């Protein structure tokens, strides 16, 4: 599923694969974004070798995998710059960002007043927009 954007990005939903070339394997992100045209793997059109941003929406059964092994696999994709982990029960998004040094930074955005800046894409993503239809219970 390829989605249209106003800029020169290619956005793919959860039915597309991201290939981990060094492992000769692939994973399925919830969302991945490529700047420009995606590079198609030798496996076929549903397999891409480049992604600039990957998003996972967390569920109770996958949160450990998404934060652990799956992230370690994403780190092996050289083009990947930012990895977003979106909580579905509270307004919280964790952003892991590859630095020029090769290290990864970690930042948590918590609260509906927060705005995520995706530097690799040059866009802002308000949490209020992400969670616009979600009703949170007062704690």
């Amino acid at each position, binding site marked *: 599923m390829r989605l249209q954007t106003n800029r020169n990005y290619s956005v793919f939903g*959860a*039915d597309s*694969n991201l290939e981990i070339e060094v492992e000769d394997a692939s994973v399925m992100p919830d969302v991945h974004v490529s700047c420009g045209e995606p590079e198609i793997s030798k496996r076929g059109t549903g397999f891409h070798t480049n992604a600039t941003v990957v998003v996972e929406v967390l569920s*109770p059964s996958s949160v450990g995998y998404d934060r652990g092994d799956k992230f370690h696999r994403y780190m092996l994709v050289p083009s990947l710059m930012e990895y977003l982990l979106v*909580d579905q029960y509270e307004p919280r998004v964790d952003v892991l960002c590859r630095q020029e040094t090769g290290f990864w930074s970690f930042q948590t955005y918590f609260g509906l007043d927060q705005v995520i800046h995706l530097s690799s894409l040059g866009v802002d993503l308000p949490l209020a*927009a992400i969670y616009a*239809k*979600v009703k949170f219970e007062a704690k």
Partner: protein
Amino acid sequence: MLTLNFKFAQQRMTALKVALNQKTDESHAFGSNAATNGQADYTIFSPNSPQKVEFVNKSQLSGPSTSHEPPKLNFSTEFLPTFVAHL
């Protein structure tokens, strides 16, 4: 050696069954197409066969969901359209 191989195959099958069950649960929550297509989340390609070997090494998963709380943020109808609209 045969026993070891058999055990390894058994472990992989168990991991696959667990993962598929979990993916089904996840698919229900998020409306993902992944599970309905029968695709694994993590696929290793066999160098000796033209056919891909699929399995999900999710032994490190936190285990089956213990939460019966329904998902609040719907992936396909809420998150994805909003995300795309901001790009």
